């Protein structure tokens, strides 16, 4: 077993209990998704105030909701196309909220350099999702690149809990640029190999 696989298994244990509780209470997954974004806005607020540890704790809570909504939908047999769409849209709001919190903090401190780094990281984070969504309307699958949403969220938490947000922003920026480039390259290759899918 790999290190990250082991960590994943350890964290799955309490999450399974929470999922079971939500299923027992018959909470609709779309509501869980919405609660997640509201809590993420609170985390963004804490980031804007420079309270990184508080932001980290709030992010953990928010992302529990984010993580379990899909699993609860499965257990409750409430999986729907709208649920998937709603989840993706709300995830973008959560992502952007966190970046805006940091942009506010750095601009308050007169740090134009990090306002730019964070704004660019936000742009490429959004482009990461957009390139995949757009690519998968013309090719079968476009799941390449390292920096996806779970990695971004964990990095935000690492940066918040250990007060290393600047380094985290650099990592998110560089790896998001790579991820977007990977998706463009893959889409180009697939289309030129004649593996495009006609979409009605």
């Amino acid at each position, binding site marked *: 077993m790999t290190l990250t696989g082991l960590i994943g298994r350890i964290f799955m244990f309490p999450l399974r209990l929470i999922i079971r509780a939500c299923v027992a209470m018959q909470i609709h997954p779309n509501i869980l998704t919405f609660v997640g974004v509201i809590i993420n806005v609170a985390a963004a607020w804490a980031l804007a105030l420079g309270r990184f540890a508080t932001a980290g704790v709030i992010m953990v809570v928010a992302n529990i909701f984010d993580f379990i909504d899909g699993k609860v939908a499965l257990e409750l047999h409430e999986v729907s196309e709208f649920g998937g769409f709603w989840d993706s849209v709300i995830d973008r709001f959560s992502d952007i909220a966190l970046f805006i919190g940091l942009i506010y903090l750095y601009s308050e401190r007169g*740090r134009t350099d990090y306002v730019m780094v964070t704004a660019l990281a936000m742009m490429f984070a959004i482009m990461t999702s957009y390139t995949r969504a757009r690519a998968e309307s013309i090719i079968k699958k476009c799941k390449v690149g390292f920096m996806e949403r779970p990695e971004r969220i964990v990095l935000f938490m690492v940066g918040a809990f*250990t007060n*290393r947000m600047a380094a985290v922003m650099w990592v998110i920026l560089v790896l998001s640029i790579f991820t977007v480039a*990977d998706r463009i390259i893959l889409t180009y290759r697939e289309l030129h190999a004649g593996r495009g899918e006609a979409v009605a």
Partner: protein
Amino acid sequence: MKQAATLPGRVLWNAFFWTYERATWQYDVMVIAILAFVWLTPPDWLNDPMATGGGPVCWVVSMVKGE
């Protein structure tokens, strides 16, 4: 696109053109590299607006120097 033929070239290309799943050894290596960068790079080098000091690297260097 033609892949780099040499081993270092291939490693760099595979790190850039990432196709590995989570919980693979390649993923572990990438995570360790990222965490090393985040935790070991002195905040002063990055001009971090919130953290100051040299971080663990400078701390170890000063320990070695006996300062």
